[in-house]
């Protein structure tokens, strides 16, 4: 039976990813500056940050493609430098840029992968079908990958990354450059994966709304991890919720808000707004105790964009623009890749 093994993997004490004092230096450029990180088994972990923050370098180190300059990293309990093959057996990878062979069919691409990973021949057909059906490409399995759209290729790469049942699946910008519909279907697969396989998902993304789906997120900036927590906790750490109400009598409402709830409301364009912790829980009390008829109410939570701004001092887009400026200022600094 396979189930006990899954349970073991899910509850194992070994973290899926464990990083201690990891650094990577390219000449004068210190891409990663001593980071510590633990990713629990079974969680979906988001890795955020502008380009040039060191995300890709970190992923390359975790995937055994780049040796670190200092520090250690373990994936599925195996050291990425000393036990490269063990790590490779346990990880699945979906890169930002396609790594499919356009001149092979979808199925041939997957078979190549199955052979390279030495999967038992008897289970390959079933496994192939499972992953292809999961991403909705079973009917297109005989088509050449060169005829696929960007979204289909990404789905096929995800299927391929899962073919060998990795313990940790790395997704580097899995939805970048895709239309909203494909983006949401890819997130559908990711959520389904969490239900059906004992898998840890480690992903990088630019999209703050996608980071919300993660169990925990880390924000990386200039080679360091600036903060690591659940999306909820991060948003709460940034500030209170903003509650906006429209009332029958704004003056009375303003007075009551200060007197009953001890908040400092502001009135603008017929809307009274104020900050409060845990806005959703506050609303019932507001209706019960304000004593002024309320016509409408809205609660806005701080977004992860706000979180990003507060920890890195800029929005993710501004941060990228400034990185680009730095790159232009130093024409000899090139993006290093393997």
């Amino acid at each position: 039976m396979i189930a006990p093994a899954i349970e073991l993997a899910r509850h194992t004490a070994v973290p899926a990813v464990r990083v201690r004092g990891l650094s990577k230096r390219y000449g004068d450029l210190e891409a990663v500056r001593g980071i510590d990180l633990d990713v629990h088994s079974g969680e979906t972990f988001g890795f955020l940050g502008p380009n040039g923050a060191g995300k890709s370098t970190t992923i390359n180190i975790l995937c055994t493609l780049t040796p670190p300059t200092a520090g250690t990293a373990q994936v599925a309990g195996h050291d990425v430098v000393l036990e490269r093959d063990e790590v490779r057996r346990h990880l699945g990878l979906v890169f930002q840029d396609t790594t499919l062979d356009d001149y092979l069919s979808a199925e041939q691409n997957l078979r190549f992968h199955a052979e390279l990973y030495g999967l038992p021949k008897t289970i390959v057909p079933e496994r192939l079908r499972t992953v292809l059906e999961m991403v909705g490409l079973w009917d297109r399995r005989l088509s050449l990958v060169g005829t696929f759209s960007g979204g289909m290729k990404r789905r096929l790469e995800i299927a391929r990354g899962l073919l060998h049942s990795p313990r940790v699946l790395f997704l580097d910008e899995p939805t970048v450059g895709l239309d909203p519909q494909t983006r949401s279907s890819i997130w559908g697969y990711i959520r389904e994966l969490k239900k059906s396989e004992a898998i840890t998902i480690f992903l990088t993304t630019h999209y703050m709304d996608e980071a919300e789906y993660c169990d925990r997120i880390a924000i990386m900036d200039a080679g360091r991890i600036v903060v690591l927590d659940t999306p909820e906790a991060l948003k709460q750490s940034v500030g209170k919720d903003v509650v906006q109400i429209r009332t029958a009598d704004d003056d009375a409402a303003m007075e009551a808000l200060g007197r009953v709830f001890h908040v400092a409301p502001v009135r603008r364009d017929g809307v009274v707004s104020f900050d409060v912790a845990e806005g959703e829980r506050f609303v019932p009390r507001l209706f019960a105790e304000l004593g002024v008829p309320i016509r409408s109410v809205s609660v806005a939570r701080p977004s992860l964009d706000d979180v990003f701004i507060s920890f890195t001092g800029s929005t993710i887009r501004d941060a990228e623009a400034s990185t680009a400026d730095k790159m232009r200022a130093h024409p000899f600094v090139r993006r290093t890749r393997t």
Partner: protein
Amino acid sequence: MSVSLVESSHIVVPVLVPERSFRNDLRAIKIVWHRDIIRFWRDKPRIVASLIQPILYLFVLGSGLSSMIPAGRGVPLRTFLFPGVISMSVLFTCFFSAGSLVWDREFGFMREMLVAPVRRGAIVAGKCLGGATAGVLQGALLIAIGGLVGIPYDPVLIATLLAELLLLSFALTAFGVLVAVRIKGMQSFMAIMQMLLMPLFFLSGALFPLNGLPGWLTVLTRLDPLTYAVDPMRRAVFERLAIPTAGVTWGGAAVPVPVELGIVAAMSIVALTVATAQFSKAD
């Protein structure tokens, strides 16, 4: 089976990736080879295009130069050229095959291979076998038209030529891979290949006999590894046609065919070993 597995709409059967073993390295070699064959076979225009150059050499150059030689003397030039032209054709096919490694790097597929739990040597070996197979197929097509230039369709001769072609193709691909492993762009690969291919080809005796040359040229031709691949094929053809030939000589003594083939085999092993070492270091 746990409840969560049954509930989900897609029941996923987990598999375990086995530990790295010699058997799995063989599977990796086979699939890398297989991919190359699929791609070679799909690319029919490339096969046709690569036949044009040897046919030009054989019929246009061969026939044109023949008119300078008085009839009835010596070996028909086209028969003489045949082994050299096959070698040339294989040279291009194999180097192009090795170049696919550079393409793979440019188009990302290389990463798929690099993160797999297999020896880098298995990938290199698979590539070399793929190029070798492509080379032999290319050679076989030329042997098929060999009758037009007086090459008899003798099973023993054909088998000998194909076996020697296999060795040559493997060696050439290994050499090509050795170059391709460290190169990042297709442009520079092409440039370097042109630089290497032409001297290899011209000095190999593919186009002219290697005996009675000026001293400096004699030395250079003896240093060209391709010399030791062209000569055995020419000897096989001449032997079948009962034409006497001295073959390649070292200081006047003919080099035996097994020694020549041994040199080619040794070169391919060296190239393969160095290429593997470079490839393992490349990341």
